[in-house]
């Protein structure tokens, strides 16, 4: 049994609400007393993944499991899928449209940041079906 499990529905194309799930997870982690580095790593990775769902996939769902020794996050969407994951993982690669760039997104840093701030990152994606991202952040003993 996990300490806490959390579930969020992330609406698509609603930039005003993007970041709510990450913010809520942050509040939980802080309350539970996780160290600031762990909180920061989780929040950076989750926010980037959450924003990607909103920008690129029309929203989706997030499940978070918080254990004393690790935090696991699963993000599921039914968007277009990622045709070339290796390419998408490159810093600076972005298909974000101009209106999204004007908001400060689309730097092509999201996936690289997620990789950098997590201990494990798995992407399952199928064109026309969607993308599932599994992330894990370990808590140092």
């Amino acid at each position, binding site marked *: 049994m996990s300490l806490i499990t959390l579930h969020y529905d992330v609406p698509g194309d609603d930039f005003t609400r993007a*970041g709510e799930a990450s913010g809520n997870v942050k509040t939980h982690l802080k309350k539970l007393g996780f160290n600031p580095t762990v909180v920061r790593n989780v929040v950076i990775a989750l926010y980037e993944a959450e924003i990607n769902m909103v920008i690129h996939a029309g929203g989706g769902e997030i499940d978070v499991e918080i254990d004393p020794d690790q935090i696991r996050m699963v993000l599921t969407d039914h968007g277009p899928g990622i045709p070339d994951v290796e390419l998408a993982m490159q810093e600076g690669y972005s298909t974000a449209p101009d209106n999204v760039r004007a908001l400060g997104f689309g730097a092509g840093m999201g996936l690289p940041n997620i990789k950098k701030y997590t201990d494990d990152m798995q992407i399952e994606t199928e064109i026309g079906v969607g993308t599932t991202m599994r992330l894990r952040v370990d808590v140092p003993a």
Partner: protein
Amino acid sequence: MTVKEFAQQQSLTVAVEGDLSREIGGGYCGDLLSWVMSRAESDDCWFTVMGNVNAVAVSVLADCACIVLCENAPLDDDAKLKAEQQGVNILLSEQNAYTLAAALSKAL
């Protein structure tokens, strides 16, 4: 130096008052949210021209001491509302990020 002291020193307009007694630990300049998100540090004073709701979210997540909107960059209404709800300090200035960051650097 607190957010309030910096605001007074540089004649910044307080657009949203969260906790102005918060200590500023450093500064960060940038408008690309992914960069700021992963590189700004807790207690940083964030200089930007991004006055939208996502900037407020990033400020909360990165735990910045305040947002300073430079060069009269506009603050969106929904961003102001969100900042009020979340207690995010937002200051306004007609000066650019370079000038303000240099002033902060001297003051810290």
